[in-house]
């Protein structure tokens, strides 16, 4: 509930500013920031085109993944291992990802104000804090909206194994919601007709009869402008018969490749994500549940890391092999980290003030670490210049995608909203 203002009066003010020549940008964006943007160097490389979000639902412990403090009290018995970058260590559960560190940008100084799963998930997926007056779009929705494509048969925004709060289109509209795929058997949900093609044709002809009856006495553009009903049916039918559907099917990949991702749903989802990106999909979210380790944190992380490690490492390697890494931004993040203090149940609780996010590809630096947490795991100061806010990640990712992140869209409630309101962290980019 940070800034729930909106109303007709805001529009009036916006209109007034525009007519007086200040333009729409200046009114939400501090002028200094606005001027500062002119100084930013344009992304040196061709902008990234797509995003893979590995969603660690529940909030992984930074200490048992990317930010170990071996030997300190806060670590418990978690050991650290070397990575492919000298001087950078991971927790011992991620040996394969450690060998890919030279491809990663690792941020160890993430801070947010959200310590509740639902709110924090919203925050990390959208870059904004929850607001009762509108729903912000997730990063994938923004990418699809800002980087339109030649017509794709299959959805451009996909969530594989969606958790409780999958990526949403928010104020951009439900058509930007992630298309949810609940399995990794190669068949996305409900894309197979229940009847043979000839009978489906009968059904559609019958449907046409009912539609004609409904259209009588109504606007000719009712479907195209308002209900989108038949327009959507057409798209659904095209998808049902599209060759692009094969991108969901990972059995076409060599057995050895499939094995490398691990025999898990998450691993298969990661491989499917690569195929989908290769087919032209803009954003794929793959969820790995089970990080909410209020009890037995260390044991749970052994299980979780065993799933994440081969999948994440293979994802990076395979993207590189298929020459997709430079155009794809990979983000591995959860809604927050976990407390340095180990609780009475040998668990760790929610910790939004000093957690890690790993990024790779798409113009992000390779083998780079940003920020650090102290040996005692003390809260990071959000005002510290090394602290990275959730919005900064979104702004930086959008920048790397060539998106004008400061552009404001008029939301349905008549309140203009920037795509992202953080800072571009230049040091994270090549």
């Amino acid at each position, binding site marked *: 509930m*940070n800034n729930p203002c909106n*109303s007709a009066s805001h529009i009036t003010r916006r209109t007034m500013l525009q007519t007086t020549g200040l333009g729409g940008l200046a009114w939400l964006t501090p002028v200094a920031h606005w001027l500062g943007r002119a100084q930013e160097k344009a992304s040196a490389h061709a902008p990234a085109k797509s995003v893979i979000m590995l969603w660690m639902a529940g909030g992984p412990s930074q200490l048992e993944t990317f930010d170990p403090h071996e030997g300190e009290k806060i670590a418990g018995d978690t050991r650290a291992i070397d990575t492919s970058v000298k001087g950078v260590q991971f927790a011992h559960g991620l040996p394969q990802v450690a060998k890919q560190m030279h491809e990663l940008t690792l941020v160890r100084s993430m801070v947010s104000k959200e310590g509740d799963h639902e709110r924090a998930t919203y925050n990390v997926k959208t870059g904004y804090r929850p607001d009762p007056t509108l*729903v912000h779009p997730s990063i994938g929705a923004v990418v699809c909206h800002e980087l339109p494509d030649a017509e794709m048969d299959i959805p451009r925004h996909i969530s594989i194994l969606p958790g409780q709060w999958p990526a949403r289109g928010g104020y951009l509209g439900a058509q930007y919601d992630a*298309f*949810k795929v609940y399995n990794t058997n190669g068949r996305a*949900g409900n894309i197979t007709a229940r009847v043979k093609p000839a009978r489906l044709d*009968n059904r559609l002809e019958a449907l046409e009869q009912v539609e004609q009856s409904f259209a009588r006495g109504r606007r000719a553009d009712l479907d195209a402008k308002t209900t989108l*009903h038949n327009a959507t049916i057409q798209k*659904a039918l095209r998808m*049902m018969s599209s060759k692009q559907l094969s991108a969901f099917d990972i059995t076409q990949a060599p057995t050895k490749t499939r094995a490398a991702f691990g025999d898990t749903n998450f691993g298969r989802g990661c491989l499917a994500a690569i195929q989908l990106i290769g087919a032209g999909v803009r954003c794929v979210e793959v969820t790995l549940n089970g990080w909410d380790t209020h009890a037995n944190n260390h044991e749970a992380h052994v299980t979780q890391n065993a799933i994440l490690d081969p999948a994440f490492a293979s994802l990076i390697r395979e993207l590189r092999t298929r020459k997709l890494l430079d155009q794809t931004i990979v983000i591995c993040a959860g809604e927050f980290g976990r407390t340095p203090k180990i609780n009475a149940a040998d668990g760790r609780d929610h910790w939004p003030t000093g957690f890690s996010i790993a990024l790779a590809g798409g113009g992000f630096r390779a083998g780079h670490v940003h920020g650090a947490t102290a040996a005692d795991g003390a809260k990071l100061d959000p005002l510290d210049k090394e602290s990275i806010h959730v919005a900064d990640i979104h702004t930086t990712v959008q920048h790397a995608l060539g998106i004008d992140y400061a552009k404001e869209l008029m939301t349905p409630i008549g309140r203009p909203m920037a795509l992202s309101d953080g800072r571009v962290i230049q040091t994270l980019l090549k």
Partner: protein
Amino acid sequence: MPSEKIAPPLWQRNLLFAGVCVAGAGAVIFNLLTSDTMSAPKHQASRYEKPSFRTTVDLVDEQFAADWEKAGLEPTPPADELTQIRRLSLGLTGTIPSLQEIRAVEAQPEGERIQWWLSHLFEDRRTSEYLAERFARAYVGVENGPFLIYRRRRFVSWLADEFEANRPYDKIVRSLITAEGLWTNNPEVNFVTVTVDQNEDKKGPNEVKLAARVTRAFLGVRIDCVQCHDDHLGDDWLQQDFHQLASFFGEADMAISGIRETGKPYEFKYRRQREPVKVPTIVPFQPELLPERGRPRHRLARWVTHKENRAFARATVNRVWALMFGRPLVEPVDEIPLEDTPENPYPPGLEILADDFIIYNFNLQRLIRIIAATRAFGLDSKMPDDRTPPTLEHDQHWAAFPLSRLRPEQVAGSIIQAASLTAIDADSHIIFQLNRSIQLGEFIKRYGDIGEDEFYIQGGTIPQRLLMMNGNLVHERIKNDLVANAASRILATAPNDAKVVEATYLAVLSRRPSAEEAAYFVRALSQKGLLSRKAKQADLYWALINSTEFSWNH
């Protein structure tokens, strides 16, 4: 204990299960297609012809008529009664009427059916449950809320009891604002405990969230805009207006015995001030209506629901209107100006309906009946001929009934209802009810619940169409199954194909087929071919369920 109402002991459920199975088998033999065995509601038709009722309706109608004339709009003609019945069922119970109910309502004299239907709905537990869920979204949101100390289900169930008893709305709201005790014993307390943020250092309910909920949900005022700063954007609210309101909740605190009035006074650090200050309890407008004595929350509750605090009545009228039309009179639903101005006048009907609501002691059922009786509610959403279809301007001025996309639970409820000839309600058909909740949950997840964005109109999506065309719920409900599915029962019991098509249209779309539709589907059913009649009947069901008409309120 209330929970027993929801979940009877296992042996009872087993007994019911057996009973329902036996009854189900019997019902197959019994021809329901012409049945009117439904129990009649208590209904006095003459009540709704009295001046005390008609005067308000007429005044509302006059205001709309004047507005249409000024805008140069020809309103659509009245919709047929079954269409209006469908609107009421969707708005108040979240589902379409059953074939049995349609037969019963059609047995009533023409012209009296709408009010008779409301009498029927108000006696139906589904109505209070559904209304409670819709209101709860504004009161407590849709989130699961704080662990252990918040019981959303209990809260909604309590609210449903209140609505079922038609307790005056001002009393309901006062119970919410002043709630004390344990969230389990006093379900209304959940209105307060939902705001407890378990991750913050501060214990107890959150005054700021409560103040925002109270002003938005009960008064239709978005004063929470000035939570962080004064409003420089037109309204006159100051930051202190908001925090002085929040201060009424300052003493509400969390104790072992639940929510109690023991806390410290509310403190807040304003911008450009070094220290938090004690914030006095002051209301942002009409201070003369605030009682001088009493506990802070009791004083606030009296002020909010005061008969002269018209914002309260307007906000309620606007919300009820939105539930019935799919769109509020004033948008957004929780932001209504405190005063109207020549540039920004109140829409027709708002003040009349607010007056009536106040005079008749905040009677929600009366408000619903009045709105249902207005000409605007009864208008068709289409014109009789293609040349002059209703325009967007018609929609703006309520000169045509607005189209709105059904919510996921309305679609799911309608599919399940369309597959049953009798009304699926809370009292009977436990077997269906259980079935419904499991399948409903799955369906709603995939169809995409829009959460608290209640009245934000948008078009359909691809996953929705895939779910309807190829998904399990529709498939299960249209396939040949003589015990569970209406499609098969209609086919087995109707005397001829014309009656099959008619009964199917009534069960799924709550209307009769047009001559062309009837001819098309009768021909399709009788044609010799590879497909069995059962398969063709499933295809007819499929076509109707996949239509725009089924997925939209119109």
